[in-house]
């Protein structure tokens, strides 16, 4: 009996040791700073070095139209970017999972991965070189006689969307390939044999089967997009009006940490709400979806 108890105890110790790095990481680098930020967001400075608990930071968000306009715009554009990414990634994932064979399929995967060997900053600066007024693409348009003057392609909402889709593509393709590969081709053939056309097969067979993968990809891409700072700021310039930029401004430019912390929590609440809503709307369970990512 003591033999057994000792074995159980050492097994528990082993488990604790294995989990220790992850638990330390979570508690020290994520949970603790967030607790501190939460405390920050619920206080107000009434005099130098004098603070009182208050909801003033959250009140400012709702009374100042710029803040919640930017907030809403960020949410809508992120949702739009996620939808666009899904539309672009689906045919790519289908090609990799169902059409390409062996080496070809691996090669296509690598092609999707290659942009991520370069840092996001360099990639985005590359886009700027292509799109700015004196850049490659506007010059080409003039050269081909499509536009008389070089046009500024940077600093548009569409430019931000293109950049966000490009950055997010891989994170949508990976879960989609996983869920499409597990789809038995015989199911598609059976549906075809029973009289279904392409649209009905996609709607009735492929999408229901791939739903956990689609939801997983959408959650990841939405979170990445919502929290992205570099791409909207560089490609959208001053007009980008991205909510992370507001948070940055509060912390770094205005040195108003209380306001920045409140904004941070509002963004966290938004992404949580959107994920919850997305899961409800698609009828997926969180645990099933997470297994796909």
């Amino acid at each position: 009996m003591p033999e057994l108890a000792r074995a159980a105890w050492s097994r528990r110790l082993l488990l604790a040791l294995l989990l220790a790095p992850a638990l330390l990481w979570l508690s020290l680098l994520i949970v603790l700073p967030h607790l501190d930020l939460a405390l920050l967001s619920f206080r107000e400075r009434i005099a130098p070095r004098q603070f009182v608990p208050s909801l003033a930071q959250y009140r400012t968000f709702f009374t100042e139209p710029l803040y919640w306009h930017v907030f809403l715009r960020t949410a809508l554009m992120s949702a739009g970017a996620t939808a666009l990414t899904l539309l672009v990634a689906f045919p790519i994932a289908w090609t990799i999972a169902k059409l390409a064979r062996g080496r070809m399929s691996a090669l296509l995967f690598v092609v999707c991965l290659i942009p991520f060997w370069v840092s996001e900053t360099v990639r985005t600066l590359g886009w700027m070189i292509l799109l700015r007024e004196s850049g490659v693409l506007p010059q080409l348009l003039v050269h081909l006689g499509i536009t008389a003057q070089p046009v500024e392609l940077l600093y548009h909402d569409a430019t931000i969307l293109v950049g966000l889709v490009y950055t997010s593509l891989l994170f949508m393709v990976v879960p989609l390939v996983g869920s499409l590969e597990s789809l038995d081709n015989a199911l598609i053939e059976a549906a075809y044999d029973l009289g279904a056309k392409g649209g009905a097969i996609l709607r009735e067979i492929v999408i229901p089967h791939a739903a956990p993968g689609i939801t997983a990809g959408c959650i990841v891409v939405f979170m990445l997009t919502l929290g992205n700072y570099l791409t909207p700021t560089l490609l959208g310039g001053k007009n980008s009006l991205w909510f992370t930029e507001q948070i940055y401004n509060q912390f770094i430019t205005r040195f108003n940490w209380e306001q920045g912390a409140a904004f941070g929590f509002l963004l966290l609440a938004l992404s949580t709400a959107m994920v919850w809503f997305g899961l409800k709307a698609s009828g997926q369970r969180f645990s099933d979806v997470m297994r796909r990512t």
Partner: protein
Amino acid sequence: MSATASASSAPADLEARAVSKRFGAHLAVDNLSFAVARGSFFSILGPSGCGKTTLLRMIAGFIQPDGGSIAIGGRDMAGVGPNRRPVNMVFQQLALFPMMSVSENVAFGLARRGMARAERVRKAEAMLERVGLAGAGGKRTDELSGGQRQRVAIARSMVLEPTLLLLDEPLGALDLKLREHMKLELKQLQASFGTTFVYITHDQSEALVLSDHVGVMNHGHFEQLGTPQQLYYAPATPFVAGFVGNNNRVAGKALALEGALVQVGTAAGWSVRARAHGTIAVGSAVEAFIRPESAMLGRSAADFPPGQLAYTGEVLSLLFDGANSVVLLRELQSGQELRIALPQTGAYADLKVGDRIHFGFDPERAICFPAAAAHA
């Protein structure tokens, strides 16, 4: 090669004319022609890789033939997609839709035809009742047993009232007991629906039990097309003789001709008489096939009719399997090994390994082919 699978004058539901399909250097289906009469059960029997799956997929429309034509219900199917053919298929792994209930599975094809929901549900329920699954419509497909899943797959196709139902080795995934049961059920279902079934299998027993006509396929062409009885009692080629049912294959030379009979001698010096198939010259290489159940056993040489060759053998092993029991014998002089069915009377129930016993064959029930005709 051209043949019609029916002697009657019923119109053909399926007619293939000179159909060919090539994958690279491999000729999967070689200039194949046949017809299947309305309401009959037709099987394509062959070893794996013989081209039967390719043939079935061409009938279903998943692949296009390189040459020749396929007509279904009298209509040429060139350029008609699988979703527009009056043909449905029961897949090898059944391919039931796991994201749908049993009832939705059965109603899937009806929905694609634009049938109203209430009508669809009613028809699906009626079809489920017909295959003995009344009330199972609300279940998920993984809640069903193997046999029930089988019936859902058939119901899903039959509810569309196809001209032709294709079945791609649907019993392969079932265990032996259930397979025997489903064989019977499939035959009854076919009889009650009256639909033309085209069934592919590598299992000769399935083909013999189920079919009105069987095409034995090898290397992309039919070796023989006929009723199960014709295949069994009058095989047209050595391949059919070896593939359909059990057979003792004896390779040797033609020693002498006696009317329609050939005396076959093996290299080890054993000789047996068999009915000649085709023209056989004395001295040419031949192969003879002797069914295990066509042999007679005797306690003494006097048990055999005069004029019949009788041999003495030693029992190598006994394979007791009820009505299908056989004994493996070694002929004493030449060492030739033979498989002989034990009579069901139990007369030889006391036989032991090592016993000596006499045996002989009715030469009319053994068949001899010229060896050069062998395709395999």
